[in-house]
């Protein structure tokens, strides 16, 4: 599903240059649930941003679902993001003046899906995250866990190839974190490919594979026995 080779990225900090990713080689198969771990500054967010086409690599190849991702202009990147990727953020990033259903249907709007169908799909996905009756509520009327579930529904609504979650539980308490991870596991069990960036070991243990990053290189890449979040809820 994802294949990256010799990925380099550096940021220009005034006169000095900060080499964040120093040659990453990384493969993800379809249906995997991968945790990307590392301390802050290890380059895990940068990697995720490049995978999410929010940032571009300086060097290296990136192939997503057989499509080589390179020479992206903003319009092309937007189209690819819309087609291939779903995003879940630490701070949810729901649009605060749109209700849950409208938030979920937003990626479909940019796909040019008709109103009626959008509404229907949005409700369907809200139902899957258990928030159907909250469809008309604004984000300010939802709890943190509910917001993240709406965000996951939004990320899934466009049926992406890969779901990218950047610290999805970073702003949540343990119980809610596990609820959210339970949802992510369910989605994974349905065959979706998911990448989770986290620095919490217990969250990482709920994935099927852990990739450790340190100073811009992968220091460890292991399959783990998945801990089911449902057991802890």
């Amino acid at each position, binding site marked *: 599903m994802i294949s990256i080779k010799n990925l380099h990225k550096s940021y220009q900090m005034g006169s000095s240059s900060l080499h964040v990713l120093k040659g990453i080689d990384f493969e993800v198969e379809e249906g995997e649930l991968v945790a990307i771990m590392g301390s802050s500054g290890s380059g895990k967010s940068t990697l995720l941003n490049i995978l999410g086409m929010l940032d571009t690599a300086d060097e290296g190849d990136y192939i997503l679902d057989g499509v080589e991702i390179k020479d992206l202009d903003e319009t092309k990147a*937007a189209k690819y993001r819309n087609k291939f990727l779903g995003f879940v953020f630490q701070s949810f990033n729901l*649009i605060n003046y749109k209700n849950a259903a409208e938030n979920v249907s937003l990626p479909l709007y940019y796909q040019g899906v008709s109103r009626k169908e959008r509404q229907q799909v949005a409700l369907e996905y809200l139902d899957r995250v258990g928030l159907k009756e909250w469809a008309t509520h604004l984000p300010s009327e939802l709890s943190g866990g509910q917001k993240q579930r709406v965000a996951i529904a939004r990320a899934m609504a466009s049926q992406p190839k890969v779901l990218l979650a950047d610290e999805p539980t970073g702003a949540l308490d343990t119980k809610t974190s596990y609820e959210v991870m339970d949802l992510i596991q369910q989605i994974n069990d349905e065959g979706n490919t998911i990448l989770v960036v986290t620095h919490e070991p217990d969250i990482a243990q709920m994935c099927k594979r852990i990739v450790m990053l340190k100073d811009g290189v992968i220091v460890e890449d292991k399959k783990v026995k998945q801990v089911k979040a449902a057991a802890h809820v």
Partner: protein
Amino acid sequence: MTSLKILFDRDTWQEIFGSIRKNKIRTIITVIGVLWGIFIYITLSGSAKGLDNGFERAFRNIAKNSMGFWAQRTSVPYAGFKIGRYPELRLADAQLLKDRIGGIEFIAPRNSRGVFGGTPPLVVNNNKSGNYPLYGDYPSYAKITTKKIYDGGRFINDQDVKYQRKVCVIGERAEKELFEKGENPVGQYIKINDIYFQVIGVHKYIQGGGFESEGDIFIPFSTYNKMYNRGDRVDFFFLAAYDEQDPVAIEEEVLFNLKRIHKVSPKDERAFGSFNIGEIFQRIIGFARGMTFLSLVVGVATIIAGVIGIGNILLISVKERTKELGVRRALGATPSEIRSQILLESVFLTIVAGICGIILAAFVLAGINAATVNLEDFPYTNPTVPLSYIFGALFIMVSLGTLIGLIPAQRAVSIKPIDALREE
């Protein structure tokens, strides 16, 4: 997506209304900026037009390019004559002037007593009497200034002049003072300078009709000259040029000809006096035009200020919404979709504000009009704004709204989605 499709897409508008509704106060303040601009623009140009119309009305009773001439003392020796001579205008001059100057439409020789000199004659009706200014006139005089004659009466006609009839047109004041209330003066006889004259009409006094008053009595020119033994002498020529003529040029031509006829030096500035209503009128029209121009400039400047305000506020709004726009782009919004959304917001706000301003201004103009409609002295009538001005203003607003909207729209797409998302 083509831009036209975006424009007619219900979702586009829902997005716009959504973000407008989110920032009600911001939106209202912005709208007021432009609304005020167009309001000032429409009110000012409407008022300027009202002023213009008002001046037109003030001069409605006198031909707009009319002028008068009279003789004074010469101040330059010429053709053997010493200075200080009093040239005398003659009746024949009228025909000469009209023959020589093609631009003259009507020319009315006049004599008068009790206005510029001489004592007004005593006018007697039975036991009532009074002194009233007396004019000897030709019928053409009524063509230069409007004379409103009350029902049942008429002004002097050609036959009156030809047969030196002893008929007179009296003013409202003379009627009031010489006749009983309810008595019809037309057909009755009054004594002017001990000579009986039949009253043929009563004229209504109208403001803006020259130097006349409501007491004036008009008699045929020929009768007047016979009565005062004036031969063919004329005190005063009153004339009207054709509408398209330049009144200043006509005035110069008349003076030039009068000087030639009466052997006065062409350089003599004092031998003949004149006044030129056309010139005054032109100046007033020029003033009104200046007002219109000023109102256009001020109005357009205010609109520009308002639209810049919209751009300014949208810029702040884009900054506020950086994160939202980042999310939208992460979800697949292309830069052009973001750009057109911001642009449409700008144009939509501008148009709504503009239309509100136009409506408000229309109400205010109607209000001013209603308040001034009965004020005869106040030169302000029927304030209107040509449709072309309104459409012009709307056009300016839409194009400026687009141009100004481009700045925040460009800013919105210039931020990378990753930076937008990082923003807290």
